[in-house]
């Protein structure tokens, strides 16, 4: 089944709140070779004006993946994990993600287009904190390979 072009414009319900843990931030930072003290050392983060350690800029992918799952679980979308290639990725932040944040994400499919036998699905995930304030927007293009010719 090809990607359903009618998912363009579709918005999925906000995800359940995700509590950002301090050790998760440190674990993610180690994984991406982020050694800056504000990612690991609470005192260094507080000295820089943050409530706790702050996450590297690509940490939002952890939250965004929860919204991708909604797309994969939608039987009418026609998107199968095994056929997805990550085309591009962008994070536009209002502020860093901080340990202790309770984040909710909402995905909107902004564009679906055919591209040489493949489908390119662009989606935008808005991540907001417990007060409803914007934290980061994660924008992705997923290239969904067409059925084998």
């Amino acid at each position, binding site marked *: 089944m090809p990607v359903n072009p009618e998912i363009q414009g579709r918005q999925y319900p906000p995800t359940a709140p995700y509590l950002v843990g301090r050790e*998760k931030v440190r*674990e*993610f930072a*180690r*994984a*991406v*070779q*982020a*050694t*800056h003290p*504000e*990612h690991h050392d609470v005192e260094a983060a507080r000295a*820089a*004006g*943050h409530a706790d350690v*702050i996450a*590297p*800029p*690509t940490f939002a*992918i*952890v939250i965004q*993946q929860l919204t991708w799952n909604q797309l994969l679980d939608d039987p009418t979308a026609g998107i199968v*994990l*095994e056929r997805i*290639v*990550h*085309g*591009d*990725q*962008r*994070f*536009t*932040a209002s502020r*860093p993600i901080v340990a202790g944040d309770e984040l909710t994400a909402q995905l909107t499919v902004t564009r679906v287009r055919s591209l040489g036998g493949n489908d390119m699905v662009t989606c935008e995930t808005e991540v907001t904190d417990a007060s409803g304030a914007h934290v980061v927007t994660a*924008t992705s293009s997923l290239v969904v390979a067409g059925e084998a010719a």
Partner: protein
Amino acid sequence: MSETANGLGELEVGRVVAERDLHLTREGLVRYAGASGDFNAIHYRDDVAAAVGLPGVLAHGMLTMGAAVQPVIDWAGPSRVLDYQVRFTRPVVVDPESGAALHVVATVGKLDEGTARIDLTVTFADQTVLGKAQVVVATDR
């Protein structure tokens, strides 16, 4: 590893602000899979990678993206990053023994009121693996 001293007030287009060698290993891919929750088997199983026609186990694109920005973060500070985007243009094959060596060069691409766009050139085996890799950092605070 070489770093250029923080000089946010005296930037000019074309200036290299940071440069670094990165090393990705199979252990690092497993670590990233666990940290990120992306358990696609092409990132840690040779048989699965081969079965889908890949030249080998590939680094997660998001691992390459996440590691490539670190020289800029160490230079500018993590709170200054406002926007970061990349295009995944070429896969990074991680050898089970020797891993994969990446090289990052961060250059000032554009200066605006209160912000600077830093362009990343990320190479693996002398070929760029990320396209349009751009980090916008705040320069006014």
